[in-house]
């Protein structure tokens, strides 16, 4: 009996193949009448082995015409299409495009009673304009790989593994001698996986693949019972599949309890961020609202969170305190944000991690993007040089210098000597010499600078006048090498060398000039040892000479009240060598179905602390205890070295008998605990709830006055709270989330003092984001935030410091009062026009749409007898254009 072939519509069309102007998908075939066992074993319809992508007619794409072309194809005994005709067409050139592509299809011929026979079949060729426009999708966004094993745990060699991607792409692989297979995916979402082997039952399952996932899977097949049919249809769903055997499944690299990942559309369209990826991070639960771009994660100081670009530590993440990030969004593959209990591959941080992943340049064709708004302009270009060599480059420059220069030109309070400007660049060259290797050379750089003369001395600090300048920048070259030893063993090596520079001048009273020749190296080896154990081991190091010239008062530590009459003057010019190697080992264990344990340990050495060695054991788990429900938790120890000015043993020129810092400091330490759950309500809607507690000790606290130990490990802290994230991942029309954090962060600066509120503590943080595609290229989004006011320290009185001629406040109980709550609505409207060779996106973003006067601080008069509230930015519209070619 000949199997009847009908045409199914793919589940979704979300993305297109890289470098393709069209997105065409072929539907998998579905048997409507299951064949009898014997027939199924001896007869088979033609099976597509080579799919050809149709070119999307530009006019049809511009008009948004999409749908399916139903074709009838004749396939000969060699699998070639001999005839093709349109049964139901779409017009607009799509019928011809579908025919042209289908005529180049290659099939495995149909069989009847074991003999190859010609066949006639119908195919529905779907054109998705949406997917075609998403042709800029990253080349490789995730990996799905694993091992197929039999009931005896022996690898199944020659099994056919088929993956049907969310956009209908179909990939097929044959397991090797170790039973291994691998797919590099350019789209993410729900991937349907079908496993077939001659002597085993077929198996089908749906895997939820997220951006940058590296799924390590083990499928265990059971033998075919006698006289049972083989359900070979690849789009049989798991629920339909009566023969599927339970498998051991392991997701990589969910080594951490919580990892939040932003998808590209969320980044581009998120209201209030100007399409800037790293600013979007501030909308996740656990991140406090900040007016100056500081990342305050789960009640910890900004310097307790580290930012990496593909494993390389970068000194800043935002230009000028949050205007935009220092890496082009166009070059981002993903941003992983770990608010706590993170993997042992990260160290030297006691709070959180932001890991920015750069994407591979496209390997076909060229693409260029220009983005212009009221603050800055950027260009981005990428393309393939040869088949194996591709590049990408981006440059951005602000023009707030022009705007501010015009505004300040008539103001006699300041004389501008160097207008505020920032710029950054990224350049990338990627070479794939073979299927096992990928090498990438990347140059990253950023610079922020300005200098002004304050002509009007401030009444509170009149000596703070004269030239006021600031500059911060970095220039780094990075070499990345991914190597695949086998399907079970991979490695990544990342080395970087660059210079970080910070200079800051405040007249004659304050000056800082820092230069750090930073070398970083990281090597990680990942091996799937067996079906239940995966090991990741790695080494990483940061080091290099740092030269600093500093003149000013000793920087205060968090929460310290600066007493102008009791500051310590520091002056130094010293060179020190940073040397901080580390090593880690991590095991991903799957002791039972749905349970994943990740014990790990990290060892770090720091030459600039008395406790040079730190050993950090960590453990996290995720347990899929019911389908769609995951229990998660973790505990771990985290060490963070002192800042170099705190541990510097360089002499203080101002007070020759003293030193700049205290070289006998210990590393700061934190213990993280977290427990929560996740639930997938649907393919798009997920819920995550998590409680956390952090205990901090050996925190570094500045000591006022002259002392041989200007910094001591006397501080402790405790932070506890809960986070909720209800998220709707991007669908065809909508994305958004509701994030809520409740927390309390406290510090105790000396063993004798009471706990006080942390300087940036925010009890309640509510963020709601929604973005809707309205059709015809229109998209609208909202962001609403409701956040507790920042803590403030009341003024109890003042006294005249007759040495300086100004009044000094007498502070009350530190952080014992708060600003009024902050609430703000940001609105974003996008209109996109699609043309034959590109698209144009016009967006209007209105910050603080209802012009709320949010209190950000308190302003006092000269002797602290009068005060008034300082408010944040008023309503601020930002208009921008993004053009893509």
């Amino acid at each position, binding site marked *: 009996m000949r199997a009847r072939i009908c045409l199914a519509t793919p589940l979704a069309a979300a993305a297109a193949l890289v470098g393709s102007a069209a997105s065409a998908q072929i539907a998998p075939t579905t048997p409507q009448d299951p064949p009898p066992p014997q027939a199924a074993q001896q007869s088979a319809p033609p099976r597509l082995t080579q799919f050809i992508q149709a070119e999307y007619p530009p006019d049809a794409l511009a008009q948004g015409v999409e749908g399916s072309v139903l074709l009838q194809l004749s396939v000969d005994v060699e699998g070639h299409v001999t005839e093709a005709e349109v049964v139901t067409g779409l017009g607009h050139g799509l019928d011809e495009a579908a025919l042209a592509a289908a005529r180049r299809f290659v099939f495995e011929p149909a069989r009847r009673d074991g003999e190859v026979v010609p066949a006639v079949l119908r195919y529905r060729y779907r054109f998705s304009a949406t997917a075609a426009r998403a042709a800029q999708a990253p080349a490789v966004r995730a990996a799905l790989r694993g091992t197929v094993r039999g009931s005896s745990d022996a690898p199944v060699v020659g099994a056919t593994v088929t993956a049907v991607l969310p956009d209908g792409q179909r990939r097929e692989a044959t397991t090797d001698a170790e039973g291994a297979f691998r797919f590099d995916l350019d789209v993410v979402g729900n991937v349907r996986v079908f496993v077939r082997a001659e002597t085993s039952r077929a198996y089908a399952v749906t895997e939820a693949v997220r951006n940058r996932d590296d799924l390590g899977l083990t499928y265990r097949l059971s033998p075919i019972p006698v006289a049972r049919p083989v359900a070979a249809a690849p789009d049989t769903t798991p629920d339909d599949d009566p023969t599927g055997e339970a498998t051991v499944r392991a997701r990589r690299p969910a080594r951490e309890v919580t990892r939040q990942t932003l998808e590209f559309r969320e980044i581009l369209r998120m209201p209030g961020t100007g399409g800037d990826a790293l600013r979007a991070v501030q909308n996740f639960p656990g991140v406090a609202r900040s007016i100056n771009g500081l990342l305050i994660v789960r009640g910890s100081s900004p310097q307790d969170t580290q930012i990496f670009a593909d494993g390389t530590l970068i000194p800043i993440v935002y230009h000028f305190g949050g205007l935009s990030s220092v890496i082009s969004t166009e070059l981002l593959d993903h941003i992983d944000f770990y608010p706590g209990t993170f993997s042992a591959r990260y160290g030297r941080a006691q709070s959180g991690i932001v890991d920015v992943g750069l994407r591979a340049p496209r390997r076909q064709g060229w693409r260029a993007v220009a983005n212009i708004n009221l603050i800055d302009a950027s260009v981005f270009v990428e393309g393939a040089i040869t088949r194996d060599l591709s590049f990408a480059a981006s440059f951005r420059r602000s023009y707030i210098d022009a705007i501010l220069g015009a505004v300040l030109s008539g103001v006699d309070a300041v004389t501008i000597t160097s207008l505020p400007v920032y710029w950054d660049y990224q350049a990338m060259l990627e070479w794939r010499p073979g299927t096992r290797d990928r090498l990438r050379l990347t140059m990253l750089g950023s610079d922020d600078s300005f200098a002004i003369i304050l002509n009007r*001395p401030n009444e509170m600090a009149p000596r703070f*006048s004269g030239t006021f300048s600031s500059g911060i920048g970095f220039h780094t070259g990075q070499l990345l090498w991914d190597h695949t030893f086998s399907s079970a063993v991979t490695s990544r090596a990342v080395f970087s060398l660059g210079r970080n520079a910070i200079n800051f001048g405040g007249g004659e009273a*304050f000056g800082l000039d820092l230069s750090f020749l930073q070398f970083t190296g990281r090597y990680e080896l990942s091996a799937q040892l067996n079906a239940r154990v995966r090991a990741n081991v790695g080494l990483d190091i940061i080091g290099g000479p740092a030269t*600093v010239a*500093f003149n000013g008062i000793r920087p205060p530590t968090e929460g310290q009240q600066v007493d102008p009459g009791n500051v310590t003057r520091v002056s130094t010019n010293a060179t020190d060598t940073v040397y901080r190697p580390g090593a880690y080992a991590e095991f991903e264990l799957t002791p039972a179905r749905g349970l994943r344990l990740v014990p790990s340990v990290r060892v770090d050495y720091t030459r600039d602390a008395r406790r040079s060695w730190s050993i950090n054991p960590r453990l996290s788990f995720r347990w899929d205890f019911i389908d769609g429900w995951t229990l998660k938790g973790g505990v771990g120890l985290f060490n963070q070295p002192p800042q170099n000015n705190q541990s510097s043993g360089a002499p203080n020129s*101002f007070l020759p008998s003293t030193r700049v810092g205290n070289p006998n400091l210990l590393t700061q330490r934190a213990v993280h605990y977290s427990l929560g759950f996740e639930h997938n309500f649907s393919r798009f809607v997920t819920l995550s709830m998590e409680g956390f507690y952090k205990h901090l000790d050996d925190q570094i606290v500045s000591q006022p006055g002259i002392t041989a130990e200007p910094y001591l490990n006397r501080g402790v802290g405790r932070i506890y709270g809960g986070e909720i994230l209800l998220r709707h991942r991007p669908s065809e029309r909508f994305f958004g989330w509701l994030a809520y954090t409740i927390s309390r962060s406290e510090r105790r600066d000396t063993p004798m003092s009471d706990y006080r509120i942390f300087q940036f503590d925010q009890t309640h943080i509510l963020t709601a984001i929604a973005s809707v595609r309205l059709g015809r290229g229109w998209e609208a989004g909202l962001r609403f935030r409701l956040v507790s006011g920042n803590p403030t320290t009341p003024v109890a009185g003042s006294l005249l410091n007759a040495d300086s001629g100004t009044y000094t406040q*007498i502070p009350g109980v530190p952080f014992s009062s708060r600003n009024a709550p902050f609430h703000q609505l940001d609105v974003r409207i996008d209109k996109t026009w699609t043309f034959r060779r590109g698209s144009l996106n016009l967006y209007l973003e209105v910050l603080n749409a209802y012009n709320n006067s949010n209190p950000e601080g308190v302003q006092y008069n000269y002797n602290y007898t009068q005060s008034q509230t300082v408010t944040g930015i008023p309503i601020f519209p930002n208009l921008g254009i993004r053009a893509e070619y």
Partner: protein
Amino acid sequence: MARVNRTALTLLAAAALSVGCGDDLDPAWKIKTFRVFGVRVENTTRAADPRAVEAAPGETVRLTVSYLDPAATPRDVRVVWVMCAQARRMGATVGCDPAGASVLMGGAEQSYTVPSIAYGLDPFGRARITAIGVVCAGGAVAVDPATRLPSCTGAGAEGVTLTRSILVRASEADAMGHNPEITDAVLYRGGNTNDAVTLAADGSARVPRCTTDPCTEHVIELRAPAESRETYRTFDNAGATVMRPERVLYGYFTTGGELDLTFYVDTAERPLGPVRNKWSAPRTPGTVTFIFSAQDTRGGYDWIQRTVTIE
């Protein structure tokens, strides 16, 4: 120093750029109540060096408070000083160890002999005596015997609590610091340098009241001898030892009219420029009193008081 405290720098920058922008707050130049502007310290032992501000143990200094009481009937001013040879700081407040502390009570001008004891170094590397004082208008002064903190009491009394340092010379090899000096204040009517009047303490200088909108802006220039500003040894922002002119802070305060600035600082970019400030006269006739002050970073202070008749 691969990583410095960027948070502190950011906050410092933000604070520096944001404070002082409150339009609804009284500016410091406006004298509405009893005000104290500074304290001049002079070493009276060294008669040959009349502007010397530092004193060695055993030498005597004179402390003179610069104040103005705008009340219709000027009140008696009493001053109490607690001289802390070994000051103890607790946060932003200052206390005294009983040893080495002494109390002075009197008027705006008092003398004190620097004791011969072993001095510690302050956060700037100097030995100093911290004087904690209260300047009290229309009331009585006292010192709490337990805390040794001074106070001002009495109905209707106004007091200002203040601190002042007396730098103790450890070695005669060190360069002596001196008080700056203001010799004159010259008013250019309408900003016209050809229409100048030197202000006097007796109100003999006359200025028309404001009758226009906006008011005519006059310019007040402070004059000082060249030696008023000293050069001293310090560190530059690269940590190197340099000889640098003092940074002198000039203050303008008035009981009437509108000043443009409270302070004027001569900066490295404007080291020798004239010390000028804009002032517009009040709309009503009467007298206006000015306090002009000069303060360096090494303990030096000077002031003059001038009165202008508004016609």
